[in-house]
């Protein structure tokens, strides 16, 4: 047997020809091929198969493509893309006719000057300016609205320099209105999540509840959760989780205290400045990674397995970004809006005894209980008979004759 042992499998030779081996295996294969005539034969065979297959050529498609154009026409790009295209075309048109437009404009200006209509235009312009001026003056009073509209969208990219902007943005997550004063405070000071608990007892429950809701609205807060329990026959309790702007917390607390007698009160603050900064940094990093991976996926072509790997990594990074983004929003919301857990209990009713149920109810309850106990007794008897009946019968049968004899003897002795 003088067969040669080959370091390269024939399959690998084929993969080498197809460009499907790694660089080091390709080098090894090429080296082996250079000296092995048998493997060269295999390669030649494989090549001849490919060449033979290539003789089956398909003529190019002949007809037009009637289905493509309508489909393309149907598939209009999104409106955001349409606008720039039209805009560019306007610019092109303007560029093309620029001298004409310029001449026409100059002529119109001269015409207006000559006929003394400048004054008319001037008065219009003044009107326009006065309108703008009034808007600027009004902006002081409606500062919150303007600030809200200037805030960047919640999906704005995050990096270190935008830290302060993001802090300003945070109130907008839950509530669009946000006074500039509060933004300043949030931006400059440490980030503290404030929580307060307040328990009250009030005599007029309905009024206290209405007042509570009104004062929350007045302080630009909102009711996160509200539970009211108890019926008119018993004491009523209201427990509410209120979210009020952090700077309004003290004022809100003072006002809520006027609604009744304070039973307990507590306040706490959690400093999350370092956590927030850390989160921002991690978010920025993750976004950079996502961008790099997207670029990689878009611009590089490679093996499907590599593409899938990049894809998986991208999915993971995106998931992380979403999670961190949610955490960041949540934290911002918690910082800018303090949480106030208020419990209001009705005072007057709480001191009353619980009214006993009506006589008819008690009678019907007793009847139901009696019926139930009767049914239970019957069922119990049936169960007892079923479970012990056979044994009783057996013992009865066994003991019947001796008992009868004893009985007869006793009767006889009595008779004697």
């Amino acid at each position, binding site marked *: 047997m003088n067969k040669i042992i080959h370091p390269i499998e024939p399959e690998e030779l084929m993969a080498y020809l197809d460009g499907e081996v790694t660089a080091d295996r390709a080098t090894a294969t090429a080296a082996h091929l250079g000296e092995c005539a048998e493997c060269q*034969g295999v390669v030649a065979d494989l090549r001849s198969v490919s060449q033979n297959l290539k*003789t089956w050529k398909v003529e190019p498609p002949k007809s037009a493509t009637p*289905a493509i154009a309508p*489909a393309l026409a149907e*598939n209009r790009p999104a409106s955001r893309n349409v606008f720039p295209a039209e805009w560019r075309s306007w610019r092109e048109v303007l560029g093309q006719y620029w001298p004409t437009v310029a001449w026409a404009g100059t002529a119109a200006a001269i015409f207006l000057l000559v006929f003394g209509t400048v004054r008319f235009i001037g008065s219009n312009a003044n009107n326009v300016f006065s309108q703008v001026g009034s808007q600027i003056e009004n902006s002081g009073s409606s500062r919150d609205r303007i600030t809200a509209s200037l805030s960047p969208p919640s999906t704005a990219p995050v990096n270190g320099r935008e830290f302060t902007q993001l802090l300003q943005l945070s109130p907008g997550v839950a509530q669009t209105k946000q006074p500039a004063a509060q933004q300043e405070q949030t931006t400059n000071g440490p980030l503290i999540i404030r929580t307060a608990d307040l328990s009250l007892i009030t005599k007029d429950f309905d009024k206290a509840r209405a007042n509570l809701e009104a004062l929350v609205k007045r302080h630009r807060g909102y009711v996160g959760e509200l539970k009211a329990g108890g019926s008119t026959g018993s004491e009523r309790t209201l427990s509410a989780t209120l979210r009020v702007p952090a700077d309004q917390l003290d004022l809100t607390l003072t006002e809520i205290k006027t609604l009744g007698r304070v039973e307990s009160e507590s306040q706490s603050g959690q400093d999350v400045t370092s956590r927030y900064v850390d989160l921002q940094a991690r978010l920025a990093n993750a976004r950079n990674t996502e961008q790099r991976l997207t670029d990689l996926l878009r611009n590089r072509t490679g093996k499907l397995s590599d593409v899938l790997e990049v894809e998986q990594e991208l999915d993971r990074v995106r998931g992380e970004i979403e999670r961190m983004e949610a955490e960041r929003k949540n934290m911002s919301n918690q910082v800018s809006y303090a949480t106030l857990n208020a419990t209001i209990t009705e005072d007057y009713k709480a001191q009353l005894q619980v009214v006993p149920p009506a006589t008819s109810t008690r009678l019907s309850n007793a009847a139901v209980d009696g019926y139930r106990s009767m049914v239970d007794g019957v069922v119990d008897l049936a169960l007892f008979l079923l479970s012990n009946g056979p044994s009783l019968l057996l013992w009865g049968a066994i003991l019947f004759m001796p008992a009868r004899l004893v009985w007869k003897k006793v009767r006889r002795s009595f008779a004697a």
Partner: protein
Amino acid sequence: MAPTLISDEALMLEFQGGSHPAFEQLFARYRGPLYGFFRRRLNGDQRAEDLTQETFVAVIRASAQYEPRALFRTYLYSIAMNLLAAERRKRAKDSPPGKDAPEPATREAPDSVLWIRHALEKLDESEREILMLREYEQLSYAEIAYFQSLPVNTVRSRLFRARIALKEHLEPERCNPEKVAASESKKNAGLPRVEGEAI
């Protein structure tokens, strides 16, 4: 200086943004190969053209949902394969049983083409598909593995088997058609021995 070749994926993203020239480029790149894909697998050139167009229409309609998760080529051929499978199902349903073998067009085909096609028909269906995807569509092993739902190594070994079998089928037909049957038994004859095999 040679013009930079824009990747298919970049073109598709451009088309997604509304660029029709980008689609035209993609169409020009893949119309011929796709037509060949259908033409070699189906009977009738008109149907092949229709299916080529249907593939592109599907790409256009689904363009809003396109994400560059994989190569555009993979995306395109997966649509084409779905259409081909649907077409084959339809034909199998319409035609009586027993005549469902894929029969590409034969008219005007030269002898050499017939010779290749006959040899291909003798292959196992899965091996034939793998071989055709590799030789005619020039897909990578990984892509074929994806389409066939097979491990890459299986694709590689089946491709190898298919090539060797095809070689055997081609050779006797060219020399002497009577020897075709005899060649079946010698499918793997003449292969070099692999390290680790018993001598």
